[in-house]
C-alpha cells in the first residue's frame, strides 16, 4: 500500500454508519474505497449536493464534485445552492470533514490555503468546513516531499483556522488534539521514536498506543527515506 492508501484506509475507520462526510480534494477522495461493510456514509459536496457517488455511465457536465471532476449522485441525494451547502457545513450538519494540510499544530491550528509569495490558491470552502464540521480530520502524509515536518509546535504559514482540528491521520500515526497533541495509534511497524523523529511538535502518548519499539521503518516507505526528517 502507498502512504496515501494507508491514510485513506485509516481515516475510513473513523467514519460511522450514517455519518455525513465532506471529503477534500485529492487524498480524501480515496476514503470511500476503504469503508467497512455495513458502514454507509453520505457524502456532502460543497458545490451543492448530498449523495455524491462514483461516476456511472457518461459524464454529465453539470454534475461534478468539489474538485470539478465528473461524478454521480446516489438515490436519496439532493441538490441545493451554495448558501444551503454552507448552512449545512457551518451549522454542524456535516459530521466529519476530512482535509489535507500544509501544516497542522499541537493547538489544533491548520494551515492549508496559501504559501505567501509562492502559491495562493485560496481557501475555497476549507475555512467553513473546519469551523462547522463536528469532527475535523486532517489526512496527510507525515512530512513534506523534502522531508520537513508538517506537524508543528506552531504553524508558520497563514492559518485556515484556530484550534479546530480534532484528529490527524498520517501514514505513520493517528493523533488526537486534546489539550495538546496526543499520539493515539501507530501504524504497524512504526515506533514512537520513528514518529518523534518526523514530528516537530511535542506530543504525549495515549494509554492505548502500542509502541512497535523494534520496528524498522520499511512498511510505509514515504518517511523511511527521511530519517530524522526534521525541519
Amino acid at each position, binding site marked *: 500500500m502507498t502512504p496515501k492508501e494507508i491514510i485513506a484506509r485509516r481515516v475510513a475507520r473513523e467514519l460511522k454508519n450514517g455519518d455525513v462526510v465532506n471529503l477534500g480534494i485529492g487524498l480524501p477522495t480515496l476514503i470511500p474505497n476503504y469503508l467497512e461493510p455495513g458502514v454507509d456514509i453520505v457524502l456532502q459536496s460543497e458545490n451543492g449536493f448530498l449523495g455524491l457517488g462514483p461516476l456511472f455511465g457518461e459524464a454529465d457536465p*453539470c454534475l461534478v464534485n468539489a474538485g470539478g471532476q465528473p461524478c454521480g449522485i446516489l438515490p436519496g441525494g439532493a441538490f441545493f*445552492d451554495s*448558501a444551503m451547502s454552507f448552512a449545512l457545513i457551518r451549522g454542524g450538519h456535516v459530521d466529519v470533514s476530512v482535509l489535507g494540510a500544509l501544516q497542522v499544530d499541537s493547538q489544533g491550528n491548520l494551515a492549508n490555503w496559501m504559501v505567501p509569495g509562492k502559491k*495562493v*490558491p485560496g481557501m475555497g470552502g476549507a*475555512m467553513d468546513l473546519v*469551523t462547522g464540521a463536528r469532527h475535523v480530520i486532517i489526512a496527510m502524509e507525515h512530512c513534506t516531499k523534502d522531508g520537513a515536518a508538517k506537524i508543528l509546535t506552531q504553524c508558520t504559514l497563514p492559518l485556515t*483556522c484556530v*484550534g479546530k482540528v480534532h484528529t490527524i491521520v498520517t501514514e505513520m500515526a493517528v493523533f488526537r488534539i486534546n489539550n495538546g497533541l496526543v499520539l493515539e495509534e501507530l501504524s504497524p511497524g512504526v515506533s514512537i521514536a520513528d514518529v518523534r523523529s518526523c514530528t516537530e511538535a511535542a506530543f504525549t502518548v495515549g494509554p492505548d498506543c502500542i509502541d512497535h519499539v523494534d520496528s524498522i521503518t520499511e512498511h510505509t516507505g514515504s518517511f523511511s527515506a527521511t530519517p530524522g526528517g526534521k525541519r
Partner: protein
Amino acid sequence: MNKCISLQEVKGLFKDGMTIMCGGFLGVGSPEGLVRELINNGAKNLTVISNDSAFPEMGVGQLIVNKRVVKLIASHIGTNPETGRQMIANELEVILVPQGTLAERIRCGGAGLGGVLTETGIGTLVEEGKIKLVSNSVKYLVELPLRADIAIIKAKKADRAGNLVYEKSARNFNPLMALAADRVIVEVDELVDTGEIDPETVVTPGVVIDNIVVAERY
C-alpha cells in the same frame, strides 16, 4: 414586459468599471454566452464577484485572461494560473473570501441584510479590518453584503416570467446572485411559456429576473 432579449441587446448593457457577479463553480453553471458577449462588448476595469476564477478558457476565467478585470472577489483561484500571475504582478487585485462567507455576503446583498456574523475566518488573515463581536462567548466576524451592477447567471430553464430551475451542481451561486444585482440577466438552455414550471419546483422566482437570453447551441 418582455424579458427575453437577444445576445446582441445584452452587449450594450455592460459598461467600464461595473461590478459584475457571475454564477458558476469551476465554470460549471457559468453563463458562457453572456461571458462571451461581455468580452465582445469590450467593457474593462471590471470588478468581478464569483466563487472562483474557473479556467483560462471557461467561465469568468476568460475575463481574467482578457485583462478586463481589475478586482476579483472569490474563494478560490487555484485552477486558473493567469489569475495568480496577474495578482503577483499587481495587475489584478484579488480578495479571497471563504466560500460560505461569500455565499452569505451575496445572500445579504440580495436579502436587504446589513451583514452576518460568522466564526469562519476568526484568527486568520480573513479577519483583517473587520468588526468582531463576541456573542455567547464565541467570537464572530461581521461580514458585509456584496451587490453588483449586473449579475450574469445560468439556469437550465426559464418561463417567460423569469421563473428558473437549475441543473444539478450547476445551481451553486446562481440563485443567490439572482437577488443581489441591480440587473439580473439569465442565460438558459430552454425557454417555456409562463405557467409551464410547477410553482413548487421554481428555485428563483421570476420577479428578480430582468432579462432572459436563450443559450446558443455550440
